């Protein structure tokens, strides 16, 4: 590994400097400036197509920006080679609206899969996975397949999987989008708990009630630009 992603945080977790991302001629992001501190819980809100997902993709290096600069943990993303991206992604947990669990694998195997991919030994996997499942409150379902679980439980397994590498940063892109109120609340609670344990969490959503309940920093994006920034106890109104 040529890039050290595990250094202590003397600087912001994430810095966006005047970031612009174009899809053809359309500006998905237009001059975004944003600092996210280590340990922060930040909600990024906006309608679909406002640029939330593009912002997330820039953080994990899935997309290249057109102007400006993105720093992750002090590292300029434009200097990270594509062969080093996998190592960066092991420091970032990602959760999606469509959950993306492997249907033919149990909860345990789905979480273990993330650890297998990065070359962990079986004994370490057998030791760590139950702990992570316990953290998300699903140890009792470790041998269940995704179709045997509720939507909220599935999303919690996905969160467990994203935590398998002990990431410093957790990106949640509409994690409650497909869930009912009860399940959504469960997932949100889990995200807050993970944040309390020290992981920086970025939550992208358009569910205003969810954001308004938690009293954390809120960034509002509209048409690729930040239109409102509320430091703490942020509220979001459409």
């Amino acid at each position, binding site marked *: 590994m040529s890039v050290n992603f595990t250094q202590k945080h003397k600087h912001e977790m994430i810095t966006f400097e005047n970031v612009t991302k174009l899809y053809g001629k359309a500006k998905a992001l237009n001059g975004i400036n944003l600092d996210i501190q280590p340990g922060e819980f930040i909600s990024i809100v906006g309608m679909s197509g406002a640029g939330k997902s593009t912002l997330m993709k820039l953080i994990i290096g899935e997309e290249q920006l057109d102007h400006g600069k993105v720093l992750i943990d002090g590292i300029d993303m434009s200097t990270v080679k594509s062969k080093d991206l996998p190592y960066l992604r092991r420091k970032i947990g990602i959760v999606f609206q469509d959950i993306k669990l492997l249907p033919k694998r149990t909860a345990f195997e789905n979480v273990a899969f993330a650890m297998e991919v990065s070359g962990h030994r079986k004994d370490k996997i057998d030791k760590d996975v139950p702990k992570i499942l316990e953290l998300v409150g699903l140890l009792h379902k470790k041998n269940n397949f995704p179709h045997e679980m509720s939507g909220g439980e599935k999303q919690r397994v996905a969160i467990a999987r*994203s935590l398998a590498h002990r990431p410093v940063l957790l990106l949640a892109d509409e994690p409650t989008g497909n869930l009912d109120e009860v399940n959504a609340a469960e997932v949100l609670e889990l995200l807050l708990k993970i944040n309390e344990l020290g992981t920086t969490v970025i939550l992208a959503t358009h569910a205003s009630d969810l954001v308004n309940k938690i009293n954390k920093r809120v960034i509002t994006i509209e048409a690729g630009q930040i239109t409102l920034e509320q430091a703490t106890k942020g509220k979001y109104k459409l």
Partner: protein
Amino acid sequence: MTINTVTFYRIIRTGFVNFWRNIWLSMAASSVMIVTLIILSSLMLMFVITNYSVTSIRERVDISAYFKVGVTESQVLRIKTELERNNTIKEVAYISPADALKDFRDVHSNDENLLDSLDELGDNPLPATLQIKAKTLEDYPAIDTELQSEKYADVIDKVNFQDNRLVIERLNKILRFIVIFGVVLTVIFALIAILVIFNTITLTIFNRREEVEIMRLVGATNWYIRGPFLVEASIYSIAATIITTIALIPILMNLPEIFQYIAPNGVNNSFFGNNGFATALVNDYISNIVTSGHITLNIILLMFGQLIIALALSVTSTMLAMRKYLKV
């Protein structure tokens, strides 16, 4: 890229799992590979056998000059030295009347009547002989004419030249046909193999697109994602090589007899400069088979060659499919 043994094992295992999950596709890919290898190997064998025949016939071409009775050995040897100075002649062998008689007795050792009448004759009726080999086949007619000329009329009784050049020319034509036909057929089937494997791997990528996507998101390296596909392609190659070799074993086991039949004592390569180094190598190799009778090593070598070709084909098409459909 850091790959430890655990990761390596996981890549291999995933490759095997993929092979079994799409067993019908895998079998189709392996089958087309088998057809390609069988065509390639049989054409190669046909080439080798025909080439060996040509070589052995070429070797049998020579000119024998039979001397008149009463010509002394020293006279014959002087002519031998003279001929050896001719730069179209490669070698001249002297067979004395005594040697000729001994050979004759050996050849006809079963024919009591003939040997009895030979004994009754008392004297050795056989003449001294010079056996002449030319450097190239084209030189023979000139040598033939020279030996029959006035210059040697006093000493040489008879010149025996069997012109096998027509047969050789015909065999060479067959050889050329085998090479062209073989190359064309092999290229066609190699392309079919590449296409089938390309499609198989594409379908495997499609079947596993969810898994691949998740792998990327949880930080799998590109080689971790690609590895199983390459393993799968290698399994096609190995399976095809083994099956092809088993199918060819009946022919391969009989090769020593076939070569023995063509040329009982093997062939002497020093004589065939104009047939190319590779041919000389092949013939030398066959001579070894004929004289030693060891065929196992040759089967292993053939297998190895097939495996290399099969791997080259499958890895190429897999790489192409991955480049197109696997965004890593």
